[in-house]
């Protein structure tokens, strides 16, 4: 039995895994202690739970438990990493290199850094969404203190060449930070093998709870420090004050453990469903995958359906929950800056859908989604004057449109 609408927006957030909820529940009820209370069993219990979660997470990303700084989520981790490094390493330089397709939590933090007098280089991506390593090398100056490149993109799922980037950073003595929110728990992420110095990730993108995330901060080769962005009790080795969110942290820990245990089997199943969905949808005329299909997360597919408008399409696919490449609830229709960075025209960027599968997605749901999208695209093309012109062989670029 299908329950509608079907959730295929797992890059936005994932449902909580019941195993995670079970692990968290005691810490929302009886075991409510403050992990910083050193004087009684309530505090000890909480601290023990937090320490255990640290180990579970460390085991997933191959680091020491001491290198995990708990935060409220990936946005905070991004802010802490970039602003914290900028402040801590001010004497070494003020230049940061990042990429135009980063998440807003990175881009807007970099804008903030620029206001503080820092210099930021925004690398372009090619039509597959990948950066050019040569361009990265050329962007490095003697003032460069940080390279910030996301592990995998949230809109198109494209995975950047992380090991090559970290090798360049290491060679030039620059710290490498990666926003790995979409990657951790989905694909193998190993901070040692990948050469990562700082890494942001979040609970709710990996079947854990919202409101909790972490920043990995390397302690050896090199020892990395970030200046705290919140003043207070000096929790988390002085880098992030604030009473620890014990149930959230327990949930993040459990989510990490489950991810490690199930990743191989999950990935195989999810990738097969994603591939089938994509193959079927690409049988629709004038439909295109956005971004590299070679270097990509196994559960993501971003497809543009030409001559169909994104918001109309969203309305037509109301029985599936997906994202559109068009921020269309605002007065000005803003196409996705990520798709634009790939070189897509505005109309193709507007007409894209992002599908994000999860470990809870079923074959029946994919069957339904395929039919539903095919029908919606066909219906809207019947309504579309652009489709009619295309079918008549009229070059749409030859028409003088009244821009409005």
């Amino acid at each position, binding site marked *: 039995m299908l329950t509608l609408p079907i959730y295929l927006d797992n890059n936005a957030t994932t449902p909580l895994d019941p195993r995670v909820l079970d692990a968290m529940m005691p810490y929302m009820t009886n075991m409510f202690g403050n992990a910083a209370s050193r004087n009684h069993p309530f505090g000890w219990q909480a601290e023990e739970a937090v320490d255990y979660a640290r180990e579970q997470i460390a085991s997933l990303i191959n680091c020491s438990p001491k290198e995990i700084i708990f935060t409220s989520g990936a946005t905070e981790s991004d802010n802490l990493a970039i602003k914290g490094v900028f402040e801590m390493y001010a004497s070494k330089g003020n230049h940061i290199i990042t990429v135009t397709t980063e998440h807003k939590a990175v881009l807007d933090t970099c804008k903030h850094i620029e206001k503080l007098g820092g210099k930021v280089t925004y690398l372009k991506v090619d039509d597959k969404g990948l950066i050019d390593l040569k361009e990265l090398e050329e962007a490095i100056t003697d003032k460069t203190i940080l390279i910030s490149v996301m592990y995998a993109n949230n809109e198109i799922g494209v995975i950047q060449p992380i090991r090559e980037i970290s090798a360049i950073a290491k060679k030039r003595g620059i710290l490498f930070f990666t926003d790995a929110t979409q990657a951790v728990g989905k694909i193998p992420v190993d901070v040692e093998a990948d050469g990562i110095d700082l890494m942001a990730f979040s609970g709710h993108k990996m079947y854990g709870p919202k409101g909790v995330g972490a920043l990995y901060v390397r302690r050896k080769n090199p020892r990395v420090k970030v200046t705290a962005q919140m003043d207070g009790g000096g929790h988390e080795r002085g880098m992030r004050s604030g009473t620890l969110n014990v149930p959230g942290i327990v949930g993040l820990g459990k989510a990490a453990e489950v991810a490690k245990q199930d990743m191989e089997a999950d990935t195989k199943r999810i990738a097969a469903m994603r591939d089938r969905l994509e193959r079927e949808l690409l049988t629709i005329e004038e439909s295109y995958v956005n971004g590299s299909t070679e270097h990509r997360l196994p559960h993501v597919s971003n497809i543009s359906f030409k*001559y*169909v*408008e*994104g*918001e*109309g399409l969203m*309305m037509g696919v109301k029985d599936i929950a997906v994202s559109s490449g*068009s921020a*269309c*609830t*605002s*007065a000005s*229709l803003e196409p996705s800056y990520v798709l634009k960075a790939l070189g897509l*025209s*505005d*109309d193709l960027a*507007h007409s894209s859908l992002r599908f994000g599968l999860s470990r809870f997605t079923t074959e029946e749901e994919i069957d339904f989604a395929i039919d539903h999208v095919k029908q919606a695209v066909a219906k*809207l093309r*019947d*309504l*579309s*004057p*652009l*489709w*009619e012109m295309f079918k008549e062989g009229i070059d*749409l670029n030859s*028409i003088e*449109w*009244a*821009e*409005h």
Partner: protein
Amino acid sequence: MAYSDKVIDHYTNPRNVGTLDKGKKNVGTGLVGAPECGDVMRLQIEVDENQVITDAKFKTFGCGSAIASSSLATEWLKGKTVDEALAIDNMAIVEELALPPVKIHCSVLAEDAIKTAINDYRVKNGLPELELPKSHH
């Protein structure tokens, strides 16, 4: 965003979708909007010898509100004289479809499409082109 029931109705069952023969002298065509902006409307009217609009068709590339605005416009156009059609105001469409402020441009586009179609008809039939208010978007 929540759509009104009327928008959903027009989106689900659009009225008068289709194409009239733009080569005919008594057919006026209005093509407005731009693909980059996310909406393009094509509205056509067929006019009889008494200046009465006997048929109206549309095709729209756009959001639900744009589709509904043009679908509603074709309903209103049928049976009106050309002069009566010129008096159709976008705010009437906003009211009928309960469009929120961010979707008012859809109604403006529909009004533009009506006026552009009428002008096309006028020019084809040797009547002077009417001055259209430009770019209210």
